[in-house]
C-alpha cells in the first residue's frame, strides 16, 4: 500500500512530535493537582468528581502514593493540595523552610483492626495489639486464642496509616517511643492488599481505614485496658471519642492555585461531608 520508507518516516516524525505535544499539554493545563494519602485517594476522587459536575469548566486530578509522597510534593510545589492521613513531621516542616503550608482537617478516619471471621478473638486492648505488632506476643494463645502463630500485616512506611498506627497504637500515644514494627511484619502495598491477605488467612491480623472494611473480615473491638469498655469503631464512637484509634484527615495547601480555596469550601460544606459519610469515613462534627 504505502511505500515502506514513507511509513518509516511517518512513524519517526510522529514519535518525535508526540512526547513534545504531551509536554505542552501538561504545561498549559490548570488542573487542580491533588496528591497524597492512599487512604484518602478514593475520597479525594469522589470529591473531585462531584466538584467537576458542579463546575464543568474546571478539572481536578487526584493521585495517591502515600501521605509522605503528598507532603513531599506540596513542599516541592509539584501539587496544589496534599492529602494526608497524618500531620506533618517536624523534619518535613523544617524542609518546608519559610514557606507557609496550611493544614485543614477535612474528615476523620477510624482505623479498624481486622482479623479473619473464624478467629475466636473478638476484642483486644491497645497494649495487646501493640505487643502483637512489635513481636512481644507471637502466638494467638498469648491473647486467649488458638495455639497458632500470628501472621502480622501492615502498610508500608510511606503510608500515613502506618505512621499513625505506629505512634498511637504501638507506642501508645508517645510519638517518639522505642517500639517498632517487628521485622517479621509483612509490609503490604495497600490497604486492599491487607484485606485480601486477612480474609484468606485464619491467623492473620492487620489494620485498615474503616472505608476498606467489608463483610469478609472481622473488626475487633478495642479498649484501653483489660476491664474495658471494648468499643466497636463507628461514626458515633469516633465522634464521642470512645473509639480512640481514629485520626483527622488533612489537606495541606499553599494557596498557589486559584481554585484551592473554592475546593476546600466545597469539601467542608454539607454536600462534601455527605460524600465523606458515603465512603465510610467520619464527617467532621457539624457545629
Amino acid at each position: 500500500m504505502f511505500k515502506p520508507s514513507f511509513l518509516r518516516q511517518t512513524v519517526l516524525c510522529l514519535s518525535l512530535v508526540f512526547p513534545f505535544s504531551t509536554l505542552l499539554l501538561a504545561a498549559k493545563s490548570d488542573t487542580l493537582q491533588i496528591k497524597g494519602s492512599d487512604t484518602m485517594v478514593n475520597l479525594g476522587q469522589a470529591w473531585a468528581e462531584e466538584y467537576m459536575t458542579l463546575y464543568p469548566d474546571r478539572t481536578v486530578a487526584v493521585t495517591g502514593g502515600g501521605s509522605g509522597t503528598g507532603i513531599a510534593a506540596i513542599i516541592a510545589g509539584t501539587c496544589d493540595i496534599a492529602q494526608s492521613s497524618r500531620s506533618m513531621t517536624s523534619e518535613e516542616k523544617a524542609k518546608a523552610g519559610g514557606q507557609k503550608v496550611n493544614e485543614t482537617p477535612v474528615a476523620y478516619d477510624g482505623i479498624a483492626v481486622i482479623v479473619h471471621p473464624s478467629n475466636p478473638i473478638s476484642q483486644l486492648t491497645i497494649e495487646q495489639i501493640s505487643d502483637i505488632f512489635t513481636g512481644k506476643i507471637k502466638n494467638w494463645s498469648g491473647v486467649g486464642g488458638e495455639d497458632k502463630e500470628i501472621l502480622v500485616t501492615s502498610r508500608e512506611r510511606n503510608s500515613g496509616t502506618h505512621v499513625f498506627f505506629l505512634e498511637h497504637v504501638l507506642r501508645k500515644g508517645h510519638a517518639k517511643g522505642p517500639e517498632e514494627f517487628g521485622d517479621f511484619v509483612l509490609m503490604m502495598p495497600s490497604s486492599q492488599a491487607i484485606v485480601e491477605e486477612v480474609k484468606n488467612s485464619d491467623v492473620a491480623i492487620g489494620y485498615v481505614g474503616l472505608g476498606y472494611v467489608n463483610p469478609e473480615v472481622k473488626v475487633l473491638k478495642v479498649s484501653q485496658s483489660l476491664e474495658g469498655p471494648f468499643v466497636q469503631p463507628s461514626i458515633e464512637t469516633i465522634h464521642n471519642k470512645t473509639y480512640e484509634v481514629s485520626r483527622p484527615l488533612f489537606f495541606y495547601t499553599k494557596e498557589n492555585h486559584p481554585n484551592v480555596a473554592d475546593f476546600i469550601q466545597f469539601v467542608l460544606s454539607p454536600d462534601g461531608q455527605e460524600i465523606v459519610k458515603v465512603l465510610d469515613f467520619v464527617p467532621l462534627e457539624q457545629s
Partner: protein
Amino acid sequence: MKHSRSIQSQILESLIEKAIFFAAVLTIILIVLIFIFLIKEGLNLFKVYPISIFLFNRRWQPISEPPSFGILPLLCGSIAVTLGAIVIAVPLGIASAIYIAEIAPNWLKEILKATVEFLAAIPSIVLGFVGLVTLVPLVKKTFGIPTGLTALSGSIILGFMAMPTIVSMMEDALRAVPKSYREGALALGATRWQTIWRVLVPAASSGMLAAIMLGIGRVIGETMAVMMITGNSARIPNTLLQPVRTMTATIAAEMGEAVHGSQHYSALFAIGIVLFIITFLLNLTASFFIKRRL
C-alpha cells in the same frame, strides 16, 4: 558546478556523521550521568553513617529515632529470590536451549523460539499480578505455611522472567559451535546425546555462563513483581518459604515518603549504588565470558 556539489555533499556528510556519533555517545553520557547522580546523592549518607554498619547490620529501620540503615536483610532477600529464580530457570533454560538448537525439527524450532520470545514480551507486572492471584495461594496450600507471600513465590515468577534471556543466549551459544565439532564426534561413533552433552555444551560453556550472568542481572533488578508477591518482611530468611524484602522493593516503596535530602533519602540512593555495582559486575563478567568464546 561539480565542485560546489561536492563541497555541499561533503558538509552534509560530515554533519550527518557528527549527528549519529552524538546519538551513539549519548548512551555513554547517560550512563555516566546516572552513575554520578547516584554517587552524589548516595555518598551523602556515608558522611554521617559508617559504611560497615550499612552493609552488615541486620536492622533496616529508616524512620526510627535514631534510624538504623542496615541493608543485610535486604541484600539477603534479593540474593535469596535471585538464587531461587536461577535454580529454576537454568536447568529449564539449558534443556530448552538444547532441545531448540539440536533436537527440534525445523517447524517446531520456529514455534518454540517464537513462544519463548513472547514470554519475554509479557510485562513483568502482569506476571507478578498473575502470580499473586494464582501462585501465592497455591504455595500456601501446598506447604501448609501461614502465607504464600514468600521468597519461593518470587523465585518462581522471576524464573519465568529470566527464562527467555537465558534460553535465547544459550541457544545462540550452541548454534555458534562449529559444525566440525558435531561431525567429528559423529565420526568417532558418539551418540546424539553424547555429542550434545560431552562435546557441544562444554564448547558453548562460556556463552552459557554469559547467559546465566545476564539472567541474574535481569532478575536482581526486578521491582514491581517482587513487591507484590514476596511479602516485604525485612528479615534474613532461613528458608525460601519465608517472606523476604528485596533491595528494589525497598527503594520503590520508601522513596515516595523520604523527605528529599534526608538520611533516609540518601540511604535509598546508597542501595541504588549497591544495585548498580552488582549489575555492572554481572554484565562485565558476562561480556568477559562472551569474548573468551570468540
